[in-house]
């Protein structure tokens, strides 16, 4: 880590998503004294995934600090600090370890603006490393996004590449509203060529990652690379698949998603979470309601099964891979068109 923070870096460089997130935190902290980072092991250690690496050394232990090991305490204290002029960015160590904070998140983080008729806003970010694919043990691999997406008052954002991780975290910290920032931990170490100075759409906008004409794959977070790989394989088999990356689950970008689906007339939603009552279900409902007359087949899902997340040796059974995605694509009633 270099010791100086740079803002709006221009030029291409190779970064992992973890480094891009770290850069976003450093830039936001350098720009705004009210940005404070805290949680478990985020200080000297730099976080178990090193996202907060070097922040305490650079900004001091009043700006980036370790807390007692209690997630409700972390989020509850962040609520109070946000009420009193700060912009807390808190880290939940793993998806399932955020559950002790559930009451604070759903009853206070999400509702304070509404409760006070906008007299109190809570500009805070709750960072949650989530989802599987890293061979994690129990409680380390949940896809918990639906809990937060179902709660009015929260923004729920999830990047799928390093550039978006940087852009969206910067936007999340600057947001006047609380953002649940879900980081696909299996993508933390993927190195990419990125231009952190590039203009990218903010929170609430989806992006088309790959153009295609036969069907649309709608994915977010850890499932975007799976969808892109599936599209690559399909192309070799003569089928042209478009890939949409949601980036933001709430607010949901109906405009981009529906325009994409209307252009192809077929869609598959790809997501790791158990499919029942999931974000994927919501996407199917929205697309069906809005694009029914453009659809040549029912919208399908390539998602996780309705089982607790398996142990490492069995996680490949649960995670939707290229085959599950292409099987769903195969089911899109091609014979009828």
């Amino acid at each position, binding site marked *: 880590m270099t010791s100086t923070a740079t803002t709006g870096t221009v030029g291409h460089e190779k970064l992992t998503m973890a480094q891009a997130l770290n850069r976003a935190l450093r830039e936001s902290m350098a720009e705004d004294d009210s940005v*404070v980072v805290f949680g478990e092991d985020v200080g000297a250690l730099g976080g178990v995934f090193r996202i907060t690496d070097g922040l305490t050394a650079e900004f001091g232990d*009043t700006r980036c600090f370790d*807390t*007692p090991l*209690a997630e*409700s*305490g972390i*989020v*509850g*204290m*962040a*609520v*109070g*600090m*946000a*009420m*009193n*002029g*700060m912009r*807390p960015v808190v880290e939940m160590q793993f998806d399932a370890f955020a559950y*002790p904070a559930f*009451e*604070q998140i759903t*009853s*206070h983080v999400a*509702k*304070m*603006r*509404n*409760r*006070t*008729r*906008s*007299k*109190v*806003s809570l500009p805070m970010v709750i960072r949650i490393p989530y989802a599987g694919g890293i061979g994690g043990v129990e409680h380390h691999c949940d896809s918990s996004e639906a809990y937060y997406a179902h709660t*009015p*008052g929260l*923004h729920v954002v999830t990047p799928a590449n390093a550039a978006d991780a940087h852009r969206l975290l910067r936007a999340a910290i600057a*947001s*006047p*509203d609380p953002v649940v920032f879900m980081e696909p931990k299996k993508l933390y170490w993927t190195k990419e060529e990125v231009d952190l100075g590039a203009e990218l759409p903010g929170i*609430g906008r989806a992006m088309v990652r790959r153009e295609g004409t036969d069907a649309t794959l709608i994915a977010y977070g850890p499932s975007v690379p799976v969808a892109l790989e599936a599209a690559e394989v399909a192309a070799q088999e003569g089928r042209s698949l478009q890939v949409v990356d949601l980036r933001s689950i*709430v*607010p*949901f970008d*109906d*405009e981009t998603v529906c325009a994409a689906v209307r252009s192809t007339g077929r869609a598959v939603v790809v997501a790791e979470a158990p499919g029942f009552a999931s974000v994927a279900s919501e996407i199917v409902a929205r697309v069906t309601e809005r694009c029914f007359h453009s659809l040549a087949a029912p919208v399908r899902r390539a998602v996780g099964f309705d089982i607790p997340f398996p142990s490492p040796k069995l996680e490949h059974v649960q995670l939707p891979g290229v085959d599950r995605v292409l099987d769903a694509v195969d089911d899109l009633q091609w014979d009828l068109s």
Partner: protein
Amino acid sequence: MTRDLDLLLPSPHPVELIDPTGQTVAEAAHELPDDAALLRAFAGLTTARRINDQAGALARQGRLAVYPSSHGQEACQVAAAQVLTDDDWLFPTYRDTAAVVIRGVDVAEAFLPLQGAWHSGYDPHRYKVAPQATPLATQLLHAVGVAHAARLRGEPTVALALCGDGATSEGDFHEALNFAAVFRAPVVFLVQNNQYAISVPLARQSVAPSLAHKGIGYGVPGERVDGNDVAALLTVLGTAMARARAGEGPQLVEAHTYRMQPHTNADDSRRYRQDDEVAGWVQRDPLTRLETWLRQHDLLDDAQLAAVTADADQLAARMRTELARDATPEPAELFAHVYATPTPQLVEQAAVVADELSREDEH
């Protein structure tokens, strides 16, 4: 970091400065507040009792959807408001409307939730009063955050966070004490131990020697006080606030009091406690003991009492006028305060509601 256990232990008996018969307690370890503070407290007690009586009546008339009364706990309500400076924050619960009003919140704003019109009715920043908390103990952590933020900026703010005996069983109570202690946050936790969590008595919440002892495990000094003695409350809370302001960290204060009325007007307390138990606490009433003491010390006469009562009556009259008004916000506001900028979906849904309501009007 270890602390001397003796500094953390509450006193063997609750601190009492004026006894239930209105006499000064001999050889008390603390000094009485000055005369002006006690006269101000008496006016506050009279106001708080009047608020409880008036709100109870309005609830019976159906003008309030519900009212959780602090009848019997007025000394805690008054002391909690009176020890605050303009810099300090109050974190009240749903039963602390009297404290909220005495802190300075307008009655029309304070009672908006109880009218069933909106979840909170005042600007927390304007009064430095957090929204009254309905979930138990969650607001204690918010108080720690407000206090910690102020301390980081070098401001003199202390947060006074209220909860009841039942809330001490919640996890957030313990996390709040621990976080406040670890970060040396200027917070004073006041537990109004009114003996019941709806129907469940204190014995089912805890077998600790007292609730004030719960601070020991976190390195937070605990103190217990007669919660119906406003003089003792002012002294003990005032000392705790001063310590916190001086950077000496949080303190836990347990006030022994009693909820004289049911949990709310919707509760039937005869299912779980005897009338004679309630009657016993009438003898400990916080108003009569201070009135007796003030009269004995020639600080209160009939004319002054009449003036104090008239002020309280005036507030009650204002409650009747204000709370007869329908202050329900327009339905469109339901979509206006979810996010700073409504999402496209909320814009669509607000239009649906506007359409539904316009058709209702046509019928």
